């Protein structure tokens, strides 16, 4: 597992950890049943507070993405994976709809819009 936190981004550190682990679970980089580092171990490696790390793990557990077994550690549960992806997918749809509306408002044609998407997508995803 790879994690990196920024102290200057203005985003709370627990949220950065939570989002990074969540993404790794949703994209399958972390597998169901996989053991995550212990809270104290993660805190030590990232040189951050134990409480901050605990908060990230607690919220992941509330979202059903990990399960903690006392005395054993925290595991990827993955049970909720599909439904979370679905929610994200729907949110993405809404965003695209909004973007299309915006592009219509400045008179962009569908072809021009798709061109824009192709160019931007290509840049980021090669």
């Amino acid at each position, binding site marked *: 597992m790879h994690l990196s936190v920024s102290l200057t981004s203005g985003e709370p550190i627990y949220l950065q950890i939570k989002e990074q682990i969540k993404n790794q679970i949703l994209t399958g980089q972390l597998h169901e049943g996989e053991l995550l580092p212990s809270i104290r171990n993660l805190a030590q490696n990232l*040189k951050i507070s134990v*409480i901050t790390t605990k908060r990230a793990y607690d919220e992941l557990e509330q979202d059903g993405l990990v399960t903690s077994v006392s005395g054993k550690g925290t595991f990827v549960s993955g049970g909720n994976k599909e439904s979370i992806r679905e929610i994200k997918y729907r949110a993405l749809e809404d965003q695209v709809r909004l973007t299309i509306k915006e592009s219509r408002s400045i008179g962009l044609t569908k072809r021009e819009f798709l061109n824009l998407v192709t160019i931007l997508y290509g840049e980021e995803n090669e």
Partner: protein
Amino acid sequence: MMNVIEFRQFSKRNGAFTLQNLNFPIQSGYITGLIGPNGSGKTTMIRSIMNLIRPDFGEVLVFDQSYHNQERDIKRRIGFVYDEDFFYNHLTVNEMKKIVSSFYPTWNESVFRKYLDDFQLPSRRKIRDLSKGMKTKFALATALAHEPDLLIMDEPTSGLDPVFRREVLSILSEYIQEGTRSVLFSTHISTDLERIADYIVYIRNGQLKYCGSKEDLIDSYVLVKGPIEWLRLNRLENTFSGKQQNALGFEGLIAKESYSEDVFGNQVTVEMPSLDDILFYTREEK
């Protein structure tokens, strides 16, 4: 959850200020930062925990024990790094170590050697010839070598270069790794705490202003910036814990509960405050 230190109805008059009726615990197994402006009582508190100062009223329990009858046992389990010199300047590092180590049945020579190496401290040099940073390193090495359950440091990072300050943070987070040891350190450099402190004790004018997790403290405020005109129009001056303004605009701290997006809208920018922001803007708050 267990407490490593507990202030109970503690009061102490000390010259210009009084520590007044302090009642709070410090959690075992974590790193707690003690913050507050200069002269707010940080050092007096730490000296009280070490029983170097006796309270006028109440008491401090350490490891759930009282100094009345357990002083020796309590002190053996504490590692203490103090801002001022308390070593004999005419002795060498090695000679001083022999004296200190004789106090502690749990002294671990190999741990001491390891830190001496890590810190590149010359064991034959006289204490008086060590720089301030080296003295702090020596103090930290001796404090850690008897493997204490509680490490107390008074302004340990003041006068240290950024490289060693970071090293200290790593040592601390490794030190509490097992969850059975605790650290309390006072500092006015709050960026050091921003990273690793789990709990914050914030005192001002001898009174406890906050005791709880660092997360909750930072979470309870927002930092708002915007044009002065806006401030005047919306008559929100009094909702701020503290603010500053100049010709270009204002910046201020607001308790999260008094902030709402409906009222503040999009004319202002809202940020997560740092510990420094909180210390600064709450300095005169009632």
